[in-house]
């Protein structure tokens, strides 16, 4: 009698485990073949679920997405994710067959891993499918036509005016090599700003600058937001390589912090493309995701909303806030788009991290 019970128990547990499995992996989603078909299917799907670092405020997200929702009546669900580790975690979940999002904005250094594990659907003929409805600049489409970018990120410095005297306000990248700044500034361990510097300054000069910066014994933090919170709270005087839009967004949300944090764009402003996204093969709402991404990359859709709402305008598009600011400052901008490929960025990041004295990885 005990033997059957034993076998039965084994079977029950095995069934529960198997039945509890995540979504099946690998089935290609079905996309509409025309814009009208895509819209029809997207409306049937009814919702698009995505994750990004675009906004931590639901009201701000609602303002960004409002034109899309009003135009198509498709709902959205946005989850805030911060940092490379959250994108890596999502990659693991996808590999394990679990897909909670239709797309995410991933960091460029992880794109090769996503591509290697075959996570993205496509390629898509963006102009052919959406060109009549949206104005899409091909500059924002990846070479393999699976992914898009929206807007850009400009890097500079943030400082606390209560801790930095007027004569020490940084105006250029090399200011932080002054002995006064030793131990007084934060560097975020994601080397985005410096990877953007690399194609323009060259390898030797950039890595020398990295070694010189590391010799100034900076404080190392792993997120821009926690670094900014540290400046506002008076713990850290400044951040080098700070993301301009994060600072301005935080000051928009918390005007009382304006006396504690000032964003400075230096004489050389390096920018990178933002919102690298592609539809996942395992997406539950693939057409809604594709339509949303097409809207995001369009000039009057996401590009305009990012510029207006979260200070992430494209530095090469006339009329954006960042272009006006750079013109006013007389600063020179060094933009990076898809020509700075994810593979290149991953390699550059390795070299920068090694120059900092941290494990370079393999």
């Amino acid at each position: 009698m005990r033997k059957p019970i034993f076998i039965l128990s084994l079977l029950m547990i095995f069934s529960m485990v198997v039945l509890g499995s995540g979504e099946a992996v690998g089935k290609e989603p079905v996309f509409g073949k025309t814009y009208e078909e895509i819209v029809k299917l997207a409306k049937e799907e009814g919702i698009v679920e995505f994750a990004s670092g675009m906004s931590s405020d639901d009201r701000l997200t609602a303002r960004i997405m409002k034109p899309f929702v009003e135009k198509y009546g498709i709902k959205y669900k946005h989850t805030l994710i911060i940092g490379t580790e959250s994108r890596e975690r999502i990659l693991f979940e996808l590999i394990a067959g679990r897909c909670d999002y239709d797309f995410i904005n991933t960091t460029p250094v992880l794109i090769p891993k996503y591509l290697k594990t075959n996570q993205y659907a496509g390629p898509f003929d963006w102009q052919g499918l959406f060109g009549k409805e949206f104005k899409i600049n091909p500059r924002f489409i990846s070479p393999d036509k699976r992914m898009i970018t929206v807007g850009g990120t400009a890097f500079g410095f943030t400082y606390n005016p209560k801790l930095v005297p007027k004569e020490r306000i940084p105006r250029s990248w090399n200011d932080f090599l002054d002995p006064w700044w030793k131990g007084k500034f934060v560097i975020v361990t994601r080397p985005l700003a410096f990877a953007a510097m690399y194609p323009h300054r060259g390898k030797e000069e950039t890595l020398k600058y990295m070694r010189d910066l590391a010799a100034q014994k900076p404080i190392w933090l792993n997120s821009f937001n926690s670094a900014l919170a540290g400046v506002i709270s008076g713990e850290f005087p400044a951040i080098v390589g700070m993301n301009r839009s994060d600072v301005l967004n935080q000051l928009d949300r918390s005007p009382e912090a304006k006396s504690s944090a000032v964003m400075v764009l230096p004489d050389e402003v390096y920018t990178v493309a933002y919102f690298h996204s592609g539809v996942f093969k395992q997406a539950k709402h693939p057409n809604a995701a594709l339509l949303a991404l097409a809207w995001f990359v369009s000039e009057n859709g996401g590009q305009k909303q990012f510029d207006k709402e979260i200070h992430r305008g494209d530095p090469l598009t006339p009329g954006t806030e960042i272009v006006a600011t750079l013109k006013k400052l007389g600063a020179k901008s060094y933009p990076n788009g898809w020509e700075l490929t994810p593979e290149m960025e991953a390699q550059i990041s390795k070299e920068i991290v090694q120059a900092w004295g941290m494990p370079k990885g393999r």
Partner: protein
Amino acid sequence: MLLKIAILRKRWNELWLFLKRYPLMILMMGILLCLILVPIIAVIITSFQVGHPAMPEGWSTDSYRYALKLPLFYKAALNTIILAGVGTSISLSIALFFAWLIERTDMPCRDLAWCLLLIPLAMPGVLFALSWALLLGPRGGIINVFLRYIMDIFGIHLTTGPINIYSLGGMMFLDGIRGVSTIFLMTVGAFRMMDPALEEAARASKAGRVSTLFRVTLPVLMPTILLAAMFRFVLSMESFELPLAIGLPANIFTLSTLIFFITRINQPMDYGAACVFAVILMFFMLLLIIAYRYGLRRYASYATVTGKGYRPRVIPIGKWRYLALLMFILYFLFMVVLPFLVLFWGSLLPVYLPFSLESLKLVNFSNYIEIFTAGRFSLALWNTLQVTVVTATAAMFLALIASWIVTRSELYGRGILDTLLFLPLSIPGIVVGLAFVMVFLKFPFNLTGLYGTLWIIILGLITQNIAFGTRVMNSAIVQIHKELEEAAFVCKASQAKTIFAITLPLLFPSFAAAWVWTAISAMRAFSVPLMLESKNTYVLATLMWAYWDEGSISMASVVGVLLIVVLIPITFLFRRFIVNISGQQG
């Protein structure tokens, strides 16, 4: 040769009879051993593989060659040993002093002090570390701001400090005061139960109180003290939250944060090297655990309680008792009150600002309204509750069955089972998390669909806590005579019925105390959930860290305040169970 075959056949028949007799029990033991051994094996295997763990590209010792050539590895190893050594010494000094004061002297409010010393046990390490970052940050830390104000009055003008928590010294200080409760719990019983005859003999020979303490009391209790110190050293070696919050900003790595750094922060992430560090850390921890077990066996019969009747003697310390109480109050201030106050201050501001008249004007309770209306906190609370209850219940039932097999059965190899059940103590939480990632990304476990669910966190925490559960159940079961169970067998009760209807009710106080302790451990767990959490499976401790990482210090403070408020009554419940078990007056 024939004799050997006959012996082997006999063992096999015994094993098969045992399997036939207790199939469910064996199945559960199989699951438990898988939980312990499969992650360890996965980490070791990944350390010898090339490429991403989910897409290995071959075998190589390249990870070992790379990892062992990293200067940072040796720095991290040294920092780990220094932190553990100095932190344990600080904890030991303070804990022994308090144990002596509370159990052997007439210090006032001793019972209250006993209860209050438990509270730090329930505080998640991340909460403690982040609150001290706000208190002793070199520029904005509230204590530093106050000290600079005082020093200004005396003409000493500093722009930073005078104390910098982001240093190895700062980490040692925090680790030291945090470890006091653990050592206190492990040694206070010995102080209470020690026969005072030796101390009386010392006093009769005109030795003073201090002299008696250092030359009689402590040497007599040395085995207990050494065991407690070793256990605390092991916990300190695997410490993760303090080095994460305090060490990383200062580029001070320990082995646990090095593993986290190169799998979560550094780009690109390197799982091979991380697994090498994990293997090395596990190896060192295993050596420590073996030494600890040796010490347990060797000193288990070391008697401080004799057959003669005695009354524990309280030593009057005269006017020093108020100073003693003041020292205890100071410790409680550092450990609980100050962290709570700074978090409460932070929770009342829209954005964290140092204390000033301007920032006082911004104080309001809107963060509390937001946290209860936003979905994140309620989801984290519900997840924490599920994780806590399921982990504690599953771990304790598995521990009960495992301990029954080890102590009551005649199964060949039960000693090996007991050793294997102790093994998780040598696996730091961060390694458990990493190991489960490795396991559930690979075939066939990636088919289970458990990755990214609450279950994978629960399984990780069961693995972490099973060793404690089995130790408690082993001690409890051996105290119950077999004849009670034999009587049940005579009445034709099944094994399962006997365990749950006879044995469990008899050892329920121990079971319940261990359940509460495991629940507290699961509730404050951080490193395992941090490595394994997913979109909707974060718990309160990781939610606090997420808010901090997002720059929302105020929201992180709200979570911290609520955590402390919830955990305090639970620790008093734990204290009550301990009182019931030991028969002490509450």
